[in-house]
């Protein structure tokens, strides 16, 4: 999925339609009850647990990782741990016939082509990859929910205009936007004066390997599914009794939108966005593959996978372990997403 940047915008995950049956009640009660149901879902809790571990790794990477991510021992380039040939018999350690790999037990999962510890780089890589997993979806959620609910709530020409923009966004050449943003943020490193806003933004951006704004950009370019979903939800919510009641007591349209519609459509949108996270992470790998990835030497799973896959026959560990980290994260987000959906589904109320 999500092989090219343009396709990421269309490979969004499940759009659970039926969450429209949200009933009239205070949203707080709804959320509390949902949380209770979530707590009873074991797989969702496992997912939540894994995500917590990953967040911990991202926050305290310096402590968790045994070595700094950019510490090179160039003589140890492509070193493998001694246990690796047991699981990957095609990898031949030096000493046997045709053996090519340096064995060193200094590295838990091996070292990369510059002799940097793979495990440490995976740990540090959670930073960029988590940022990728959260920033893009949040951006697109924000834009999508505002425009989608406006379109659904007001209808008429507002609806028409917004939906045509949605059509445009489907075919929007995101790659052009990404290159433009990259050119802007990466060439102004040395030009901006300390103390200015540009300098501060650059500092933040470079902490994320120059990918932070790229992913805000991707979010900006991929809100169309969110908008469509939000519009559909709004359409079904606005004819429900509690909205009609609010109208009949003379409540202002804007207040109805903010107080009654928005809270009631948020659940399904969050779920859909959770399920879209894998697509964002794959996009990062794709960007690395075509030479638009994270700024070196910052590690990210996507770039490690893209680089490691080139030599997957000689050193499978360099691609497979970051890919495993990615897979684990995706499992976690999927379980959590599913759990959230079940928890927020009003018809599940009282089932367990």
């Amino acid at each position, binding site marked *: 999925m999500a092989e090219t940047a343009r396709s990421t915008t269309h490979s969004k995950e499940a759009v659970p339609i039926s969450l429209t049956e949200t009933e009239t009640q205070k949203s707080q009660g709804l959320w509390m009850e949902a949380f209770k149901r979530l707590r009873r879902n074991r797989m969702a809790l496992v997912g939540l647990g894994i995500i917590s571990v990953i967040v911990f790794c991202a926050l305290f990477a310096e402590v968790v990782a045994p070595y700094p991510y*950019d510490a*090179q021992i*160039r*003589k140890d*380039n*492509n070193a493998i741990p001694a246990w690796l040939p047991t699981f990957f018999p095609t990898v*031949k350690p*030096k000493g046997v*016939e*045709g*053996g*090519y*790999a340096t064995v060193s037990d200094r590295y838990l999962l091996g070292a990369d*082509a*510059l*002799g940097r510890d793979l495990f440490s780089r995976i740990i540090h890589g959670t930073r960029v990859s988590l940022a990728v997993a959260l920033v893009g979806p949040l951006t697109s959620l924000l834009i999508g929910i505002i425009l989608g609910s406006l379109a659904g709530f007001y209808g008429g020409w507002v609806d028409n205009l917004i939906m045509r923009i949605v059509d445009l966004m489907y075919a929007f050449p995101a790659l052009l936007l990404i*290159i433009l943003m*990259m*050119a802007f943020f*990466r*060439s102004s*490193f*040395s030009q901006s004066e300390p103390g200015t806003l540009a300098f501060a933004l650059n500092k933040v951006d*470079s902490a994320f390997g*120059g990918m932070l704004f790229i992913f805000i950009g991707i979010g900006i370019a991929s809100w169309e599914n969110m908008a469509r979903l939000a519009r559909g939800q709004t359409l079904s919510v606005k004819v429900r009794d509690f909205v009609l009641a609010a109208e009949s007591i003379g409540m202002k349209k804007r207040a109805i939108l903010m107080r009654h519609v928005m809270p009631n459509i948020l659940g399904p949108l969050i779920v859909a966005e959770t399920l879209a996270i894998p697509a964002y992470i794959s996009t990062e790998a794709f960007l690395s593959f075509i*030479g*638009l*990835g994270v*700024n*070196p*030497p910052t590690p990210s799973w996507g770039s490690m996978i893209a*680089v490691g896959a*080139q*030599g997957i*026959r*000689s*050193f499978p560990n360099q691609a497979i372990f970051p890919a495993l980290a990615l897979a684990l994260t995706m499992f976690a987000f999927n379980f959590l997403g599913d759990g959230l959906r079940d928890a927020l589904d009003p018809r599940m109320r009282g089932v367990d």
Partner: protein
Amino acid sequence: MSLKRRFYLLFVLVLMMGLVAPAVNGTVMAQDPKTLTLAFGAGDIPTIDPSTATDTTSVQVTLMTFFPLVRSNEENPSENFPGLAESWSLSEDGMVWTFKIRSNIPWVKWDGSAVVEVKDANGATMMVTAKDVEYGAKRLIDPRTASDYAYVPVDSLKLKGAGEFNSFAAPEGKDFTDPAVLEELNKLRDAVGIKAVDDTTLQVETTEKIGFALGIFGMWNWVALPQAVIEEFGDLWTEPGNAVSYGPFVVSEWKHDESMTLVKNPFWAGIENSPAPAIDSITFKFLDTSPAFSEYEAGTMDMVGVPLSELDRVKADPAMSKELFIGPNFCTYYYGFNVTKAPFDDARVRRAFSMAVDRQDIVDNVTKGGQIPARWFSRPGLAAAPTPEDSPELGIGFDVEGAKKELQAYLDEKGMTIDQLPPITLMMNQVEGHIKIGEAIQAMWKENLGVDVQLSAQEWGVFLDTLNQDPPQVWRLGWCLDYADADNFLKGVFRSTSGNNHTMWKNAEYDKIVDEAGAETDNAKRLEMYRQAEELLVKTDAAIIPIYWYTTVSVTKPNVVRTYSLSGHEYYEKWDKK
């Protein structure tokens, strides 16, 4: 679902599959012909028109299908053999070249099943003449061709009248189809110093003495071209069926974006250094290095380049290590400084950064392909370029102590500490190999000088644009030969007027040396001049950091008999298969 509906659905499905099933390739390979399957990089070959070819793959094909006036020795590119011209002479003043064009080379074409000779209206075989070469060379310079390489005859060869012809532009609101404009253009065209005196004699007149002119006449774009065919088919004249050519091979099939096949030209009788080909047909597949290497391991390719990530395994593999060959390639990998940006506006800092780079470490642990650590810019092996044997102490190399001393001298004079240096950015295009080298050098500067450098990886187009508009403090580039002479490197890149000089470094003494060396014809004297120029460029002023000289790393199946070209282009007519 009703039964009828189910059948309908099935029918539609079958129909769809029929529509989308790829056509089965029914041709059966004949048994006997000797064939080679080789790889070019991914993506279509941009062109096989000699006048507009610029990249390695395009140039490779044009050199197989057309044949330049002079042919360089692939194992020693600065030595020249006769090519399309069987002999030549130079006038007393050193500015008029007279070439004797071979009279026995026929024009040939692929007729769909075989290579045939091209006949004229009377049924006689058409031969390549000096007029065709005149047309070919002038077409290179013609502004309507808009060839990238027109700058070589204009700027390097100083060909008479070439500059005026090439820079001619139609007046505002008119174009080249306007009769008055066309007349003026033709006048300039006739004034260009290339002239076919008769069918076998070609005269070329330059405005200055050029010591390395033969290297230029050996380029792929100094060839005979078929005027009538080009005028009939326009841009499509190179497509098989339209194209006529005369070199040792003929293009028989061009599957765009997929592959190109060349078959041997049976009418190529063979000349010195270019025999009649032994191989019957060669197919180039357009593949990335990784898939191409997989093809090789699957036994379906005869020779491929080895991807860096597989190199360790290939070197250790009992079979493949014997098939591995590492040969020189005439390119130099270097980092340049912007000498107008602090702290690199001071030669001491530049020298310090250059001396802090352990080239041997990079070659051994990062690039691994037997590259040669570079102490200067012009690749050894080029005519008049210094070699490590004759100049072991020339240039600049790894020296931590020296580097620290230089940097300290600068800091002391400015009264600052290392932490007070302005932020430094090293910029490169985002290609895995360049990034690895950049990361290693970043670490070396940190280890050896204690300086933190920020890396910035840019998309290729953005990177080039930045270099042209406002070069960053340090940047990476490489330079590969156009013609096998040190002039192409030292004057072609770093003369103060060169568009390729992104360092902003200007040195009048350097300009004077490379200008004089270009006009000199004695290679021993030229070598001495280029040594001085190198010393200025990489050490005294240290405008660049030479890093390594390229190699090509390839594996060839044991049943292929081959030569190893150093010029970057293979001479496949010399190859054979057991």
